[in-house]
């Protein structure tokens, strides 16, 4: 082959569009559409007594106001429980519009449709909802106390209780020479993508089709739900994901109420209807994550080897459980990290609260699990007076121990078995990158200047590329263009680039000739979605498999045309030729013409495929029995189980003991996601992940008051860090292939965020000399911890 695209840091093909303002986002569609505003609950928990819209009738341009009473058929049922689980004994999902009761501030009560969004907002302001407030359950403590219930028919506010165990942890801990027991907690945050959610729908009365554009991470998921709820044939519902300005997990929820309400309104009114989420709505109606409290018991020997680990934790699931118990399952199963565990027991309780529902946000339960495991490692090192990296090294799974079976069930319902990795090599590399071994001197030098420096590290293993499957369609057109479609969606990750790189290699064509479409059910109707760091693994392998089929077919057809043996043919720069003889070749475009026997030529080139163009074999039909017309193929990749990427972060911080301010001086990342399709894109993912990790450790949190009001629901009050607060990480890569998929790749999307809180907590603890057992931490909180230490 002339060029190998796989592994090249080629520029992102979508950036020309996205960086010049030429992207087509949800709000770029439907300029003439009716606008929608929602009347949302101002109460965390209340009964709805009545809805009075009389004053809204005076607003010129009002089209309709809908409440639950208007919703027909299945639209009046609770929204789907997306991921049921046997242990989820009390699942609850919301109604598209509240039915008699609201369970969090922001829950939609009425939908106002008007000539445009401005008018809809004006009318929504005049809708008077009569509420009877009920006691609100806010926070894990309040949920566990269960003095009040979120759902009257859910005792103790408990949605689910699950236990998984490897070996016999309690016996192992009882027999361990040393035991530590402590609590660790992490607070709530949210995805806050640059672009919020949004839905645009159009009912085409001529085609009898519902066309939906939605800023989602799963267009096929939305389509299935809408078709089912509306009782429409699947083919009558088209879901298109336009350019999406970030998702980070929250947009995988489907259907959000708005995703069924807007299409329903469009069909009911016979008009285009559009709703675009504003920032306040994102804070109070797009899903949250991360709130968990953990109790840890760990038994270990005098060398720091873990003998038994028992963790019980409480997960705040918010008002509803549409996403089941996936988040706490991920915490439970990813908590063990890269360490050799013989005895591990984990129990979690998923609790309802009168706050926004929780579903995965980049990292998805792993930041909490990593925080627990890594803080535990630091406690063991402290207890034994050992180097923190050394304690970790003693517990790492060795490179010769794969596949490593934890005898547990992962979030995809399949065995938790690590497929490959080289954790000691990652740790060695990280120590080098951050300067771990020489840090003592650095700390002393700073101390001499009155500065307080600290270092910390954190390790993780991330299950990526979860099934069940993804598919792809690769089509070489008669003009030579290679059209690729895969069903999962893009939120800016660079899928158009990396999938094109894979196809260009597999087919032997120029990258510029490959055009990738994602997230359009018209182009590829079977898909799952973009989440769990799965797109490259799942669709990457699917496009490779489909391209391989196209390649084989091209060679079959060309062999006949060239009167050569298929084994002697190769494809380079879009030309199928006899190996070693470029002149004896035929362009793929012409192969595409020949692949489709014609009655009618549509161009000069196409004449070659017509019935009198060449003498036919009289005994073979124009399309042989085992062939299909067209140079195209469809294929699917379905993994037996997830593939596990890994990495380790280290940070050097300076703590201002007068103010509690934390400055991240250095941040190093070593990352192993197998072979890199595009190193630049992987580094971009790591940079972005680190930014969100630092944000989650030092800045971002959701501040609910006791009544369930979100008191910082705006970018004025929610501290998203500026670029100036985010360190540029030093990044190193290892490339341990996965044995599970044809390309040997692993996911990279979420990794950067996972160890942020664990790593920075360790570094701050090291610098400030105070125990950090909950994150995030603000300067006032650190300052008061420093004060407590001074007082004792």
């Amino acid at each position, binding site marked *: 082959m002339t060029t190998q695209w796989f592994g090249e840091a080629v520029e992102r093909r979508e950036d020309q569009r996205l960086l010049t303002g030429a992207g087509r986002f949800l709000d770029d569609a439907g300029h003439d559409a009716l606008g929608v505003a929602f009347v949302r609950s101002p109460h965390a928990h209340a009964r709805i007594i009545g809805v009075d819209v*009389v004053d809204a*009738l005076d607003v010129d341009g009002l089209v309709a*106001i809908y409440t639950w009473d*208007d919703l027909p058929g299945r639209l009046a049922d609770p929204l789907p429980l997306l991921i049921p689980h046997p242990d989820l004994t009390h699942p609850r999902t919301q109604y598209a519009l509240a039915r008699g009761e609201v369970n969090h501030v922001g829950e939609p009560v009425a939908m106002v449709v008007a*000539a445009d969004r401005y008018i809809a907002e004006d009318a929504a302001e005049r809708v008077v909802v009569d509420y009877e407030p009920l006691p609100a359950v806010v926070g894990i403590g309040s949920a566990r106390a269960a003095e009040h219930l979120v759902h009257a028919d859910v005792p103790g506010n408990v949605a689910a209780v699950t236990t998984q165990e490897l070996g016999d942890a309690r016996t192992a801990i009882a027999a361990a020479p040393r035991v530590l027991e402590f609590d660790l907690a992490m607070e709530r945050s949210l995805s806050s993508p640059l672009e919020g959610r949004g839905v645009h729908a159009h009912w085409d009365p001529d085609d009898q089709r519902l066309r939906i554009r939605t800023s989602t991470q799963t267009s096929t998921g939305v389509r299935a739900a809408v078709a089912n709820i509306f009782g429409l044939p699947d083919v009558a519902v088209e879901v298109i994901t336009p350019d999406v300005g970030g998702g980070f997990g929250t947009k995988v929820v489907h259907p959000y109420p708005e995703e069924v309400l807007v299409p329903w309104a469009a069909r009911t009114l016979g008009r285009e209807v559009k709703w675009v989420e504003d920032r306040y709505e994102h804070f109070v109606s797009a899903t949250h994550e991360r709130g968990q409290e953990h109790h840890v018991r760990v038994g270990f020997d005098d060398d720091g080897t873990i003998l038994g680990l028992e963790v019980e934790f409480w997960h705040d699931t918010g008002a509803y459980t549409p996403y089941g118990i996936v988040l706490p399952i991920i915490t439970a199963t990813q908590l063990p990290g890269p360490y050799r565990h013989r005895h591990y027991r984990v129990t979690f309780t998923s609790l309802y609260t009168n706050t926004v529902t929780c579903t995965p946000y980049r990292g998805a339960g792993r930041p909490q699990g990593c925080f627990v495991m890594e803080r535990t490692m630091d406690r063991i090192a402290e207890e034994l007076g050992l180097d923190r990296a050394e304690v970790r090294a003693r517990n790492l799974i060795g490179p010769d121990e794969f596949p490593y079976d934890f005898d547990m069930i992962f979030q995809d319902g399949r065995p938790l078995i690590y497929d490959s990795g080289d954790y000691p090599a990652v740790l060695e590399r990280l120590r080098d990158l951050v300067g771990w071994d020489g840090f003592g001197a650095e700390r002393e030098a700073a101390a001499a200047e009155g500065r307080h420096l600290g270092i910390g590290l954190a390790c993780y293993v991330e299950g990526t590329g979860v099934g069940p499957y993804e598919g792809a369609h690769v089509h070489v057109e008669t003009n030579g263009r290679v059209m690729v479609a895969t069903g999962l969606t893009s939120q800016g990750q660079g899928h158009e680039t990396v999938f094109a790189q894979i196809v260009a290699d597999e087919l032997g064509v120029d990258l510029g000739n490959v055009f990738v479409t994602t997230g359009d059910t018209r182009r590829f109707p079977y898909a799952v979605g973009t989440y769990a760091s799965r797109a490259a693994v799942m669709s990457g392998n699917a496009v490779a498999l489909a391209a391989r089929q196209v390649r084989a077919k091209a060679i079959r057809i060309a062999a006949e045309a060239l009167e050569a043996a298929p084994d002697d043919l190769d494809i380079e720069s879009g030309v199928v030729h006899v190996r070693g003889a470029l002149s004896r070749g035929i362009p793929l475009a012409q192969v595409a013409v020949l692949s489709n026997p014609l009655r009618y030529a549509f161009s000069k080139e196409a004449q070659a495929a017509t019935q009198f163009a060449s003498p036919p074999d009289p005994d073979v039909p124009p399309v042989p029995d085992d062939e299909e017309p067209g140079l195209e193929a469809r294929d699917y990749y379905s993994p037996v189980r997830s593939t596990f990427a890994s990495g380790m972060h280290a940070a050097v911080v300076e703590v201002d003991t007068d103010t509690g301010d934390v400055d991240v001086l250095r941040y190093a990342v070593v990352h192993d996601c197998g072979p890199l399709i595009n190193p630049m894109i992987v580094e971009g993912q790591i940079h972005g992940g680190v930014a969100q990790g630092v944000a989650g450790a030092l800045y971002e949190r959701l501040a609910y008051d006791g009544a369930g009001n979100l008191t910082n629901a705006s970018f004025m009050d929610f501290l998203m860090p500026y670029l100036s607060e985010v360190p540029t990480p030093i990044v190193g890569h290892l490339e341990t292939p996965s044995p599970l998929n044809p390309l040997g790749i692993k996911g990279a999307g979420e990794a950067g965020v996972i160890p942020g809180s664990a790593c920075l907590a360790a570094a701050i603890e090291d610098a400030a000399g105070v125990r950090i057992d909950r994150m995030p931490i603000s300067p006032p909180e650190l300052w008061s911890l420093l004060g407590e230490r001074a007082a004792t």
Partner: protein
Amino acid sequence: MKTTFPVSAPPGAWAALADPQRLAAALPNCRSVTRDADGDGTLHVVTEVAVASVRGLWAGTVTPVDADAVHVRGSGAPGAVDLVVRADPERTSLTVEGTVDGALGTVGAAVLAGAIRRMAEDLLAATEPPTPADSRGHESHSDQPEATGSGPGARGLELGAAEPVASGTKGRRRVARGAGGAALVGVVIAVVVRRARRRAG
């Protein structure tokens, strides 16, 4: 749809609305209100309607059901309406129940209910004289429901009553109630005209 709401009518309002001419005058953008010549008390109403963004010409009939209720049916560009409007015996509340199809059926039940309630209030209020100075005689007329009940408005309802109207106090009372029921027609129709009237006002 079904909605119930309290009403409070000024003195004589129910009777005033029983008069097709006065009803037509009280309905903004009303084209006509006529009574069947041979009729069963049915009124034929043609009017422009507007609820939220739904607007257009609507034609329908209003037929007494019994002393407390009328049946309203009709259609037009805004949609088809098939509603029973029933007053409680004390005339302190109205219940409107039935189906609304077409464009009017898409505005949402809360909008329909709100519009009907607002219309009822406005229409009943509209029977009050605009100023004391120019409507003294009118007002005194309205204060005598019996007189109105025996006038043209009531006669049509008498003709259309399911059973012969008895003479005497009992019969008069029934007629008066019937007239009140007929007036509710206007309430329903007014649902759709309120916006236009507001604009005109």
